[in-house]
């Protein structure tokens, strides 16, 4: 809440910054009304709500540059936000800080099918890129389930994946260049439109840095040719073990599908209630398997996959007859998260990765943990790459339930770490999991990563408090700038 966590002095500084922002970029883009600020308190993760001091609705790169420069001058931190659909609290504002909203930077700047690339502003929605590329028989591969609303800028910050990243990779493999505003307002260009550039791959470090290294204001993305053939099948199994076994068999056969998704009975129930996807009745687990590529290749491999599924006792195999069918098969999977809202008053989605070969064993462990905690868990995952999304169902009216759900989530992450996996496959660390970073990495590992942070943002103004459990003092700079060292504006000094 405004004024509750900071001193009166800090709030006054923020309001003064708001005045300068109004002068610099226009009053219509600067919000300080508490009712309006409230709507920006959280992203897709409702658990963390922090009221910003100022919200800036940027419309142009210059708005971002000016905002960041004024923040740097005042020593006030800033957080960037796209569509606000992130699931790790990466866009949660800093209390009394500035929130820079990029949803109005939503132009498609350049479409270049000859070079298979597109230049877009960060507020452009993921699905729009594919829509824009479609007339040229091209597509943008990273497809998070929230792709109809999540922004490219957000995808860059989180290195978002999606169902098709098993074959095609993640955002970092499909971003060629980025224009970035650094924390002192300097604009740099990382990467570009050519496949290589001399020097360090700063773009590679920037993608997935969760807004802690700067604000992206333009992105060059790589497009792929729409494949000749796409075949999707929906397979029902009477046991999760059979489904998991099928996945292993497919990989062992040397087949690399475009996507293999798994859902368990509870997740299916929710999806059914939400979108009536008509999944195989009575299935304990379903697999959605998609193969794409040249027709001959897909046809033969598809048959092979069917054979493998039957060998593992699949009781129903449905093949999508056309685009509409395919869309419906995917609809169930893609709305699964929010759909569990229909079968439970509350839920908490986690995101962890385990080596694929450990899947059945980990699922069994998760099941026991859930039983112990007296909570139900619906499972949706990218079976192909071992990325789990346990949906922990609970009733927030029951005392202690939210805490138990969170603890179960973290216990599952511990399982992931023990198994040699990761605490996050695609949602990012953000606010939610920074405490777990020390479980996955040593202090040296984290300190080394923070060397990068110190190079990009020595004053720690870009999205502080996210990703790393403890901030690191940056080398030559003797500590982070504090309120006391802000310049006296009346003197007109510029730092």
């Amino acid at each position, binding site marked *: 809440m405004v004024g509750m966590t900071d001193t009166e002095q800090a709030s006054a500084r923020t309001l003064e910054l708001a005045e300068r922002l109004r002068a610099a970029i226009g009053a219509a883009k600067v919000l300080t009304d508490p009712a309006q600020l409230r709507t920006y308190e959280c992203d897709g993760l409702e658990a963390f709500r922090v009221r910003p001091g100022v919200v800036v609705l940027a419309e142009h790169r210059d708005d971002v540059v000016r905002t960041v420069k004024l923040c740097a001058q005042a020593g006030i931190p800033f957080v960037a936000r796209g569509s606000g659909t992130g699931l790790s609290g990466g866009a949660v504002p800093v209390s009394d800080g500035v929130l820079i909203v990029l949803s109005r930077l939503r132009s498609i700047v350049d479409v270049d*099918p*000859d*070079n*298979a690339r597109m230049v877009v502003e960060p507020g452009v929605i993921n699905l729009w890129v594919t829509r824009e590329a479609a007339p040229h028989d091209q597509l943008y591969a990273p497809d998070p389930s929230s792709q109809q609303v999540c922004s490219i800028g957000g995808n860059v910050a989180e290195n978002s*994946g999606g169902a098709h*990243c098993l074959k095609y*990779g*993640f955002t*970092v*493999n499909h971003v060629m260049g980025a224009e970035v505003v650094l924390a002192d307002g300097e*604009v*740099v*260009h990382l990467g*570009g439109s*050519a*496949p*290589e*550039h*001399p*020097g*360090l*791959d*700063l773009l*590679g*470090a920037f993608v*997935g840095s969760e807004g802690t290294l700067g604000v992206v204001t333009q992105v060059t993305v790589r497009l792929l*040719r729409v494949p*000749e053939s796409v075949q999707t099948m929906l397979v029902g199994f009477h046991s999760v073990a059979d489904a998991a076994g099928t996945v*292993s068999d497919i990989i*062992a056969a*040397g087949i690399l599908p475009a996507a293999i998704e798994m859902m368990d009975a509870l997740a299916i129930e929710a999806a059914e209630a939400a979108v009536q996807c008509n999944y195989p009745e009575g299935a304990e687990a379903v697999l959605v398997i998609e193969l794409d*590529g*040249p027709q*001959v*290749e897909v046809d*033969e491999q598809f048959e092979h996959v069917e054979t493998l599924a039957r060998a593992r006792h699949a009781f129903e195999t449905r093949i999508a007859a056309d685009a509409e069918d395919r869309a419906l098969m995917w609809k169930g999977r893609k709305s699964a998260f929010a759909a569990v809202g229909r079968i439970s008053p509350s839920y908490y989605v986690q995101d962890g*990765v*385990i*080596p694929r070969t450990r899947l059945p064993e980990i699922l069994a462990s998760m099941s026991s943990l859930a039983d112990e905690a007296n909570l139900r868990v619906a499972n949706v995952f*990218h079976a192909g*790459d071992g*990325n789990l999304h346990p949906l922990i169902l609970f009733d927030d009216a029951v005392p202690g339930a939210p805490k138990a759900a969170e603890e179960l989530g973290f216990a599952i992450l511990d399982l992931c770490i023990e198994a040699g*996996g*990761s605490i*996050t496959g695609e*949602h990012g*660390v953000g606010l939610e999991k920074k405490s777990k970073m020390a479980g*996955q*990495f*040593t202090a*040296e*590992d984290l300190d*080394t*990563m923070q*060397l*990068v942070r110190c*190079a*990009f943002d020595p004053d720690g103004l870009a999205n502080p408090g996210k990703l790393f459990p403890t901030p690191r003092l*940056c*080398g030559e700079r003797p500590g982070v700038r504090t309120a006391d060292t802000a310049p006296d504006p009346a003197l007109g000094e510029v730092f």
Partner: protein
Amino acid sequence: MAVRSDNNTVLAGVTPGGMATPASAGEVADILRSTTGTVVPVGAGTKTGWAAAPTSCDLLLRTTALDRVVEHVPGDLVVVAEAGVPLETLQGQLAEHNQMLALDPPEPGATLGGIVGANASGPRRLRFGTVRDLLIGVTVVLADGTTARAGGKVVKNVAGYDLGKLYTGAHGALGVLVSTTWRLHPLPAAAGTVTVPVADAAEAGRLANLVARSTLTPTAVELRWDGGSGELVVLFESIPASVEAQSAAAIELLGGGERADEPPDWFGERPTGGVVLRMAYEPHALPRVLAALPAGSAGTASACTGVAYLSVPADADLAALRAAIAPYDGSAVVLGKPADLDVDHWGPVADSFGLMTRVKDQFDPGRRLSPGRLLGGL
């Protein structure tokens, strides 16, 4: 360059003060902690000419004894191997399980660490990407002896910064790679090529474009360029039926071509002689890049990717060439040159150079590691 196993070693024209060949990551850390001079890491030494000569080399740190394949989990398509493992050795082991690391730089005996440090790649980058897309975890030792990991053993992993990408192409300037983790691919069952002659630069562009916009999924499309003409090879690697079908489709698309079961000998080889450059540019600009080359240039290009390896005459005006390809986001980096020739190795710096300098200064404040080897003399 030449690295010999006696005391007369030379690296990119510089004689190191001493040499060490640690056998474990711990030993690497000890060396860096207990010494204070400049250090240049090297693997098999096949690409030491790919970066500028170091301004100083008190110690040549060879990683060739870090040669263990630590863990291969075929079911997860993941392998962990120390930096000194030669790629060929690794491929041999992976092939026993019908898998491969989809990297095909041609330098014989090259180590994994060296391939990462030099960002080496080959023709199959078209289909599988490069180190950037295949390296999922690293362990490095920093200039002060700190050992640090980044990434992990699973492909899907966004925890923390992906430092592996920073170390790629850094020629050891940020840290000494000691261990690498890779994502693997299944070995293809069959292969086949279609080769067509290319009469001029425009033709090269036209044919490359046809393939790029089609639904064909070759693993490589390589152009051999002989200063004015050459030939184009399209390589398919998949199940036999698909190789046949796509080869036939390619012949129809390109208006002819010869079928073969294997790529030609020149496939993936680097040119030699004169100044050898690695050029990168917007892929569609291929004909214009070829046209900008000085007379007597020869080499190969990954025709649909926008990368080419060319040898240009020793007296070529590199600055002019770089300026000519700049409109296509083009760059030309020196991979090899006559020993006594002085060249601008990397070309001009970009607006991110200040940032690069700051990164280098954070990782290696004393400028111990590979000093002066990178862009802008970093």
